[in-house]
């Protein structure tokens, strides 16, 4: 679409450029302050009045999540670190064998989950610690939207774990292959994994009904739920793929919506927190905003051949931050 239609209106020149100086692997917001997660060692706080690097890890930063009050990161130094809005940070877990902490999830009730190797851990808001050994390496971690339930993606499926219910048998969802990431639908009815083989797999939690979402040209690395949970938006193709989840059967026997087509592959996406709008980042460096209802586009960043590797909205949906594999970054205020 973007190839053939009239020129796309652009807000790109309104973005505030930020030189991250290192590959950007994530971005979060504390209020109006964008915080870029760098590939190694540090967070870059980038408020309008001056940037500040805060070193928090002794090596690569492998995972980051934020709930708006803290950013929790896992590193190849075997540390799990929580950083607050003022830059103060504390180690909340250390693996004594210095294994990589490469999965992190934050629960709706203040719980934090992380994993190293096959073992997933949860620390509840009260500070109680629970651990669970998965059948193989934990490749994805997510909390259910309500209650203390965690999903673990691993080889040949995903497991639901109930960290607070001692003795409750984990619920297994099986599908052959390597599952690398996991997410719950916002209504808690579906569990979706990203797979090594450029596909998504899903289960309806109530009855284990399978759903298979294929057709991608690449592995899906970025996915999220649109405001209200009507669609699961994903990267992995030369357009934004939106799977409908508005009915009781999810995307079963339905086609995805495909928007914001480009010659370049979608590498990252970020759903607007309130509106039916998705920010789409491409391998050529472009960032587009697409309105789901009619596919209307606005350009937020010009292509410059730096693959987009981080994309995120502030909670109000007024600011969009982006970063690239080569260390460029920026923030656009709408």
């Amino acid at each position, binding site marked *: 679409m973007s190839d053939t239609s009239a020129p796309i209106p652009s807000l790109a020149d309104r973005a505030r450029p930020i030189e991250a100086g290192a*590959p950007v*692997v994530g971005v979060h917001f504390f209020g109006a302050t964008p915080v870029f997660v760098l*590939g*190694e060692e540090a967070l870059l706080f980038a408020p309008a009045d001056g940037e500040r690097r805060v070193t928090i890890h002794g*090596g*690569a*930063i*492998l995972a980051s999540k934020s709930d708006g009050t803290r950013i929790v990161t896992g590193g*190849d130094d075997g540390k799990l670190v929580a950083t607050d809005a003022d830059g103060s940070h504390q180690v909340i877990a250390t693996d004594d064998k210095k294994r*990589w902490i*490469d999965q992190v999830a934050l629960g709706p009730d203040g719980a934090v989950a992380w994993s190293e190797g096959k073992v997933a851990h949860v620390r509840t808001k009260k500070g109680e610690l629970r651990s669970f050994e998965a059948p193989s*390496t934990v*490749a994805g971690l997510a909390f259910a939207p309500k209650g203390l339930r965690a999903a673990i993606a691993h*080889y040949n499926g995903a497991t639901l774990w109930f960290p607070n219910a001692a003795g409750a048998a984990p619920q297994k969802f099986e599908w052959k292959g*390597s*599952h*690398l990431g996991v997410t719950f639908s916002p209504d808690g009815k579906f569990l979706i994994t990203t797979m*090594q083989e*450029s596909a998504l797999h899903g289960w309806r939690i109530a009855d284990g009904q399978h759903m298979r979402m294929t057709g991608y*040209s*690449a*592995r899906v*690395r970025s996915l999220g739920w649109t405001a209200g949970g009507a669609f699961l938006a994903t990267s992995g193709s030369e357009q934004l793929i939106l799977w409908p989840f508005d009915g009781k059967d999810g995307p079963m026997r339905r086609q995805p919506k495909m928007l914001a087509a480009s010659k370049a*592959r979608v590498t990252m996406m970020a759903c607007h927190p309130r509106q039916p709008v998705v920010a789409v980042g491409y391998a050529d460096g472009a960032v587009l905003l697409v309105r789901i209802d009619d596919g209307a586009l606005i350009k937020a960043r010009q292509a410059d051949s730096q693959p987009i590797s981080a994309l995120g909205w502030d909670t109000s949906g007024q600011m969009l931050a982006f970063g690239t594999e080569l260390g460029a970054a920026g923030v656009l205020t709408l």
Partner: protein
Amino acid sequence: MRGDLVRIIDGLMRRKGKFDAIIVETTGLADPAPVAQTFFMDDGVGAKTKLDAVVTVADALWLKDRLRDAPEAKNQIAFADVILINKTDLVSPGDLDEIEARIRAINPYAKVHRTERASIDIAEVLGRNAFDLDRILDLEPAFLTAEETHVHEHDHGQEHGHEHGEHHHHSHGNGLKHYHDEDMQSVALRTDKPLDPDKFFPWVQDLVATEGKDILRCKGILSFKDDPERFVFQGVHMILDGDHQRAWREDEKRESRAVFIGRKLPEDKIRAGFESCIA
């Protein structure tokens, strides 16, 4: 174990520039193919890394036993670009020659080194560019070159236990193949007649689609009809990679050569198929 490998390489890529190379050491009896395929199949890994070579270390003392009882050992030999015959100080020179001949019977194309305590110049095992299409230069099987001058004569099926006195040393002549491995072979193809690309591509794609699970490696340099450029290809199981490489030189013999290394390959069928691609 592709998922784990992808995850770990994703992690390492966050420290890009802080290391020179990644060495993936598989478990002793792992199949190297899924590891190698990851570098071609996964878009993220493939875009940021380049597979350099598969290096197999063979234990001179135990290799013959492993070739007998562990099919993975043959896989590892057949798949390799570089093979170190290590612990050479623990076996007799005669046994070493025999071990090397056994390796050659499975994979005549790998570069073989004899080492003690795996002592080797690093340049012989790193930076080989073995999967680089531009480096598919030497398709001459090593048993036809003068490099290994002494290989023992060996009766088919008589695997071991022959006495030294029976050994008959001689230089290799053209195509004398002293060992034949029952499971793993290489099929070398050659023609000086130009090939028809419209016949070759469907044939080779069908071949790897149907026999790909048994084809460990393949590579070739091709001369197509009315095409001034050399076409080179290489593959791992069902995955093929190919491109025009450069113009044929005036002083170069325009011929097509290809080799398939694999398990119980249908040699006659492959030969007939290749012949049928002649323009």
